[in-house]
C-alpha cells in the first residue's frame, strides 16, 4: 500500500502539511481516504481467509472424527501461548496508536518495538510447531504419514491447518515488515497528533491479523478435541 504508507513524496507547491498529496484538497480528506482504503482492504482479506474457512467447514461436517484426531495432533499449549502473545501484541499496538495520537513520540517507538517483539515470538513458536510436524511427517503431500483409518481425512485437516496458519503467518511476516518501516518513521519523528495515519493503518492491519488468529485457534486446536473425552 505505498499510497497509504508513504508520506513524503510529492512535495508540490502547497503550503500545506508536508504529508498532503497534491490531488487531495485537505489533509483530513487524505486521512479519511487512507483509512477507508485500509478498511476496504481488510474486507478483501476477510474474504481471502473465507475461502479456506469454507473448505474447513465443509470437511468438518463430513469428517468429524478426522477433525478430532487432527486437532489432537496440535499442541494446545503452544497454541494458547501464541494466542496470549498475539492478543498482547494487539494491546501494545493499540497503545502505540494511542501514543501517536497524543504525540508521545518515544512511547510510540517503544510500543511499536514491543509489538514487533511479540509478533516475532509468535512466528518463532509457529516455526517450532511446523518443525515438529515436519519431523513427524505430518506435512501433507507424498511423504505424509499418519496411522489410523482416518489418515486420508486427517491429511485434509492438516492441509487446511497449513493453509490457514501458513496464510496467517504470511500476514504476520508482512505485518512485521510494515511495522519495521513504521517504527523507523516514528523514530525519525515523522508523526504528529495531526498526522499519524500510517501508524493507525498498520494498527488496523495488525488487529485484523490478530482477529484471524482468534478464530483459527479454537477452530484448529480446540473445538474437536472434546470428541475423545466422551
Amino acid at each position, binding site marked *: 500500500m505505498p499510497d497509504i504508507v508513504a508520506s513524503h513524496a510529492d512535495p508540490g507547491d502547497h503550503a500545506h502539511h508536508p504529508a498532503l498529496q497534491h490531488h487531495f484538497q485537505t489533509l483530513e480528506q487524505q486521512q479519511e481516504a487512507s483509512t477507508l482504503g485500509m478498511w476496504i482492504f481488510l*474486507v478483501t482479506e476477510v474474504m481471502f481467509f473465507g475461502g479456506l474457512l469454507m473448505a474447513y467447514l465443509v470437511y468438518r461436517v463430513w469428517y468429524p472424527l478426522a477433525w478430532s484426531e487432527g486437532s489432537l495432533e496440535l499442541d494446545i499449549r503452544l497454541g494458547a501461548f501464541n494466542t496470549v502473545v498475539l492478543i498482547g501484541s494487539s494491546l501494545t499496538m493499540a497503545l502505540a496508536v494511542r501514543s501517536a495520537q497524543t504525540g508521545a513520540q518515544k512511547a510510540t517507538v517503544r510500543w511499536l518495538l514491543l509489538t514487533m517483539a511479540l509478533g516475532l515470538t509468535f512466528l518463532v513458536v509457529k516455526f517450532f510447531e511446523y518443525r515438529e510436524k515436519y519431523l513427524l511427517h505430518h506435512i501433507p503431500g507424498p511423504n505424509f504419514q499418519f496411522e489410523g483409518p482416518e489418515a486420508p481425512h486427517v491429511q485434509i485437516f492438516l492441509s487446511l491447518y497449513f493453509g490457514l496458519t501458513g496464510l496467517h503467518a504470511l500476514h504476520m511476516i508482512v505485518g512485521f515488515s510494515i511495522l519495521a518501516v513504521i517504527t523507523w518513521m516514528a523514530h525519525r519523528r515523522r508523526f504528529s497528533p495531526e498526522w499519524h495515519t500510517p501508524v493507525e493503518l498498520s494498527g488496523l492491519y495488525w488487529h485484523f491479523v490478530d482477529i484471524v488468529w482468534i478464530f483459527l485457534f479454537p477452530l484448529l486446536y480446540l473445538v474437536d478435541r472434546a470428541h475423545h473425552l466422551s
Partner: protein
Amino acid sequence: MSGHVSPKTTYYAIFGALMVLTAITVTIAFINLGPLNFPVALGIAILKATLVILFFMHVKHSSQLTKLICGTAFFFLFVLFGLTLSDYLSRGWFVAPGGTAAAGTRVTIGPPAPVAEPAGQTQTTTEPQTAPAR
C-alpha cells in the same frame, strides 16, 4: 477517527477481558459439551473478535461508513458459508422412491434422512425382525 483518544485503562480492560475469554475457551476444550462444543467455542471467538474490532480498532467511535464496511465483510462471508452449506447439508435429504439416494449423495450428518417407503424391497416388509441384531 483519529479524533477520539481512548483512555489507557480501556485498552487494559479489554486486554484483560480477552485473556479471561481465552482461558475460558481453552478450559472448555477439555470438557465435552457434545453438540455445543462448536457453537460455544465459536461464540467466544466472535465475542473476542468483536471486542478487538470495537475497541482496539476504534470502530465504536468510527463513522457509520466504517461500521457498514465491517458489516459488509461478514455479511458476504455468511453468504458464502450459508449458501454453500445449503448444498452440503441438504445432500442427504434427497432420497429417490426406490430407496437409493440420488445423484452423488453423501448421506447423513444432521437430521436423519427421511426414510423412503420400502417400496423397492417389496418382499421385505418384515423389517423389525432385524432390529435385535443391532
